[in-house]
């Protein structure tokens, strides 16, 4: 196995224990706080309420209100508090209740946190994590369903992490907390209840390492967040019904991007489909496509590269309209089938 093909699943002996994505995140937070007194949680309703989605449920009882700190509704100050505390020796983990609300923190993240180290000649470290749930599919409409991860990818100095399963959620969060840079940690609301194997020990999934989550010779799918789960589902159907085998690569860290496994996979399959939930125009898929097009994999391409992304529309409230706004399993199947069968 090439070095970049990092294992995404635990060894067989550890497969017995299953946690949800949310429980995996909570376990990472608890273990990090247990291991390092500099780690603390800060955000709206993270205490007794347990966070809007329940990620920090029970942690205030274990660690107290100083280290599981409820804030007023002040997203700029939450981000600033993380930055300031990080500059002054702590390792905060902030929570933005919905990714949409991070727009109110942008100045502190983009103009401050991302740049202070560089502006000060490399003499400051900014070790904090800002967690936030993104994504549609809950009927929460246009201001509670955004997928804004690519906004942060565009800012040098920030790292952007997006776990797609419980195992990665825990391992990436522990790595993010131990990283000396500001990390935007993008969770997905629809993944919180997804179960998967999660070892109890404090293992780390390194930042900046893509994972090949499924091997296949017919077509490479690069997917992020929830779309990894949907691509896996699509892959099972295609394998069963068409004998088409998808290779699926999950970048896991959007910035810095480890593109080698993507390029290697496309060189093998000759076909690429990129799937993400965020809107297509100016989206992350463009970056993936550009890297592949500029790589040695270009010579191996047998078909045009395809992107399947959120439509260029605010997320609607109506169930059917909402569904139509973001990629669904059947669309991934249709796109992949057409691409693999040379109909594109």
């Amino acid at each position, binding site marked *: 196995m090439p070095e970049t093909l990092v294992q995404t699943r635990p060894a067989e002996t550890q497969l017995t224990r299953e946690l949800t994505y949310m429980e995996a995140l909570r376990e990472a937070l608890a273990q990090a706080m247990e291991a390092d007194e500099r780690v603390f949680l*800060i955000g709206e309703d993270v205490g007794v309420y347990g966070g809007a989605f329940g990620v920090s449920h029970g942690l205030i009882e274990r660690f107290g209100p100083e280290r599981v700190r409820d804030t007023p509704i002040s997203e*700029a100050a939450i981000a600033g508090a993380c*930055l*300031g505390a990080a500059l002054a020796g702590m390792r905060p983990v902030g929570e933005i209740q919905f990714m949409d609300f991070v727009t109110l923190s942008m100045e502190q993240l983009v103009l401050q946190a991302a740049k202070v180290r560089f*502006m000060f000649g490399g003499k*400051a470290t900014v070790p904090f994590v800002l967690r936030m749930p993104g994504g549609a599919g809950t009927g929460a409409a246009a201001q509670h369903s955004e997928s804004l991860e690519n906004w942060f990818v565009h800012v040098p100095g920030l790292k952007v992490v997006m776990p797609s399963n419980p195992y990665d959620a825990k391992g990436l969060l522990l790595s993010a907390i131990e990283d000396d840079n500001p990390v935007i940690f993008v969770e997905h609301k629809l993944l919180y209840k997804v179960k998967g194997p999660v070892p109890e020990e404090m293992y780390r999934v390194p930042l900046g390492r893509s994972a090949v989550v499924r091997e296949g010779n017919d077509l490479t799918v690069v997917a992020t967040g929830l779309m990894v789960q949907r691509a896996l589902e699509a892959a099972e159907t295609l394998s069963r019904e068409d004998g088409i085998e998808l290779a699926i690569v999950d970048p896991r860290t959007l910035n810095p991007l480890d593109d080698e496994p993507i390029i290697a996979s496309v060189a093998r399959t000759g076909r690429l489909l990129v799937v993400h939930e965020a809107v297509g125009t100016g989206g992350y898929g463009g970056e993936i496509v550009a890297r592949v097009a500029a790589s040695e994999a270009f010579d191996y391409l047998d078909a045009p590269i395809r992107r399947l992304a959120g439509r260029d529309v605010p997320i609607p409230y109506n169930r059917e309209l909402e569904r139509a706004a973001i990629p669904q399993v059947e669309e991934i199947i249709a796109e992949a089938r057409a691409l693999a069968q040379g109909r594109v």
Partner: protein
Amino acid sequence: MTQPAHQPDAALQAALLQTLGAETAREMLETMWTIRIFEEKAKELYALGRIHGTMHLSIGQEATAVGASFALRRGYDYLLNHHRGHGHCLSWSGDVDRTMAEFMGKETGFCRGRGGSMHIADVERNNLGANGIVGGGLPIAVGVGLSIQLRGTDQVVMVIFGDGASNEGAFHESLNMASIWRLPVVYLCENNQYGMSMPVARAMNVEHISQRACAYGIPGVTVDGNDLLAVYDAVSQAASRARAGSGPTLVEAITYRWEGHSKSDRQAYRTRDEVREWQQRDPIPRFAQTLIAAGLLDEAEAAALHDRACAAVEASVAFAEASPEPAVETLMEGVYA
């Protein structure tokens, strides 16, 4: 809660000078001269094309920078300041060479030439940097205060910002949060009466910015920012209060910038008479006279301090000009840890 125009009387002035001692008082005077001469030199070098970009001069505001900085334990306490921050940096670190080198974009500058005039920081001495975004340091101060509180030290953080910043949303979020958690933050508003061209009176409907403190349940005090001892006293009291666990204080220092906002300012929004009037209230000779009257200094010693400041600035120019430019190959350094 607001006490407009807190002004030390003769007895308090004498007591403050006694607390400071002759040596520190003279150092404060010399630092004011250093800031003044440094900025005049920077302006001259800019006109000659030897410094590029832009800069925001604080000539006329030196008493606030020096009085406030010397009220804290520089290097132990924390500082966050703003784009018009040369005086704060020089007061905090006293390192004229590295400041001038940063202006010239040199590798030996505080930020290795990456920050320039607007972003000078001295992380080793807990100066967490000047900020190019109006109000940008205010939310950061909450985090620094929180770190101090969680670590249980007796440090404080002073965040200096302008009158314009008090109209930003970040001001509200920051003061509220620091207040509810009783964080050891000293909020120092340098009211130099204009946000670029916008006069304070047109930008807010309260007489004193310090009145805004009552919205957060914290003390607010207004002082004459051209009176070094008044600033020193107010910031000292705010710092003591912070150290005692009683939370933040909003100190407003009223001062005036003699120069334009930045290098592109034609100053169409104010009259020459107004500027001249404020130049009559020059904080530097004023403090020198206070020291002379108190018998802590004579005219010859005052002149010697001035000359020493001139020499330090001249030396800093030589240091900066002799310093290497950052190597282009190092461009990507420091983006990530």
